[in-house]
């Protein structure tokens, strides 16, 4: 009798686990299918080349938003990637095992969990208030400081995978330490570091909250970095909440473009890391 209860409990638990898996996978599949269905029908050449038309006129696209996102991400990478990689180099090469490095690693992890809107407030205080206006530069700063902790941690993890023999060989040949770190260790781990940067890039590409009051959005092309600039996720947000069907259509198409980009980046990262990062070391 007891054995029967135990067997039944085992079966019930297995069933519940399978059910929860299905319940988790189902929304994702539903989102993807719906996104492709709704977005693909409104994707056209015009989407990538035209700016949004005034309300009431059909057509138009999100060319300014796509270009704006590219500019913002370029700015963010300019800020985030060098500082992040340097921080990772410190954690792995110069500070390995020290209390300072542990504290920095912990702080980077905690900083990753801070809401992106708080980063936006910080960029607002730092850049928008002194300048007196919204700008693409402030958006880039907001996204850049979001990239730093992520890039730092992944760089550190990749550098830790480089075997010590490589470092020792370089030092034994009399290579100056700074050069050994840069040209030997970092170069060996560079596929992994690049994938780490891509991961941070993909994460930051979809961020909207920090851009609401830094880059602010733009209905047309922006001329200088000191002007407000459109961004793809920001445009999707504004259009999704609008009452116009045409804009909803554009929002779906934009969402499809964004998600294709991110899925591509994530798949690429997975492919590179599964293939083995350190071909150069062996």
């Amino acid at each position, binding site marked *: 009798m007891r054995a029967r209860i135990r067997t039944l409990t085992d079966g019930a*638990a297995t069933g519940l686990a399978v059910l929860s898996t299905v319940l988790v996978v189902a929304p994702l599949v539903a989102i993807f299918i719906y996104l492709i269905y709704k977005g693909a029908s409104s994707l056209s050449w015009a989407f990538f080349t035209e700016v949004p038309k005034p309300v009431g006129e059909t057509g138009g696209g999100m060319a300014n938003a796509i270009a704006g996102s590219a500019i913002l991400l370029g700015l963010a990478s300019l800020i985030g990637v060098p*500082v*992040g990689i340097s921080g990772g180099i*410190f954690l792995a090469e110069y500070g390995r095992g020290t209390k300072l490095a542990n504290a920095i690693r912990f702080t980077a992890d905690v900083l990753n969990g801070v809401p992106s809107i708080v980063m936006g407030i910080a960029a607002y205080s*730092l850049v928008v208030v002194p300048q007196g206006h919204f700008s693409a530069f402030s958006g880039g700063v907001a996204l850049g400081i979001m990239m730093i902790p992520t890039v730092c941690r992944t760089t550190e993890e990749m550098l830790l995978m480089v075997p010590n023999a490589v470092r020792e060989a370089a030092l034994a040949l009399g290579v100056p330490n700074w050069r050994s770190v840069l040209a030997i260790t970092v170069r060996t781990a560079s596929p992994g570091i690049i994938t780490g940067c891509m991961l941070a890039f993909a994460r930051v590409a979809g961020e909207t909250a920090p851009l609401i009051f830094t880059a602010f959005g733009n209905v047309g092309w922006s001329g200088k970095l000191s002007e407000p600039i459109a961004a793809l996720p920001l445009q999707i947000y504004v259009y999704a909440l609008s009452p116009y069907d045409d804009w909803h259509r554009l929002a779906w198409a934009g969402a499809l473009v964004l998600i294709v980009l991110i899925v591509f980046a994530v798949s690429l990262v997975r492919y590179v890391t599964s293939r083995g990062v350190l071909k150069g070391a062996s």
Partner: protein
Amino acid sequence: MNALVPEIRISQVQLQPEPDSSGGGKPAEAGAVESSAIRAFLLSRGNSAIADRGFQWLMVASALSIFGIVVLIAFELVVRSQLAWSKFGFGFFFSAYVDSYTRLPMYWDPVNGHFSALPFLYGTLVSSFLALLIAVPLAIGLAVFLTEMCPRALRGPLAFITELLAAIPSVIYGLWAVFVLVPLLREHTNPWLIRLLGWTGFFGDDNPTGLGFVAAGVILAVMILPIISSLTREVMSAVPISQREAVLALGATRWEMIRMGVLRNARIGIVGAVILGLGRALGETMAVTMVIGNSPEIHRSLLANGSTMASVIANEFAEASGDLHLSALMEIGLALFAVTIVVNAFARLLVWAVTRGAPAQAH
């Protein structure tokens, strides 16, 4: 800085002249005598000490920038919320101005300058806990399935799908929620909830839009699921296989093995994973802003419109009317910052304690 990276000072190496050098009569001097191409090459290299020091300090400065970012954010938030802090004090978070005519509390009144964060605290807590209620059983079930029960061939694709769930931007979740989830709730789920559970008082029928805490809770649950699930999987695989084998050797069924051998040992880490998910839910902005209805009021009904700390900042920051309004929003941002830092730090400590210092995944 440590023994791993010794500095090489070539010029300080004293080289002795060889007794039978081909050059013959060169007197030995205080410096070095060149007698081979390698020595000549090494001696001609300058001292790399300056470049090494400079590079090292550059790396240290970059790493310290992470501390700098935290300090900078905290400083800016504290300074700019001074106005609201000096006007309202601690009462900003738990008391509200009561309108003398209607006898109702006016929580957020930019026109008359009465600001209270109470509805946003309430909204954040309710939506986050609702999300946890839905997400935690599902996430643990998914983790258990993937770690213990899944056929090996399915494991890769399912893990990839969960990773994709984590990578989708929240604005796309919000887009889907507004056009698919909210109508679904409005037409089918909410009437059913009202009919079945309306007697509890938590499911009122005065908000027929489908927006509200239930919608926000569901979409938040979908968003925090991958984090909780992947951390739970990491913690479960950190349980040594000897524990599993011991329980099986005593005659346990598979579920009993999971329950006693794995989940019991991993429960601290699972709590840490759940708290990390809570931390993410507390700060989630875009998807919540799009479905929660954005009303700065407190209602008992879970189907009512509401507002969270992050959503009010997203909605009102760009158009804040006046310094006090902006300062009040900054103070809400400060509270959000402090709470998420504490929650995340606590959760990371828990997960670290279980996985014993293996680098935590940066999500």
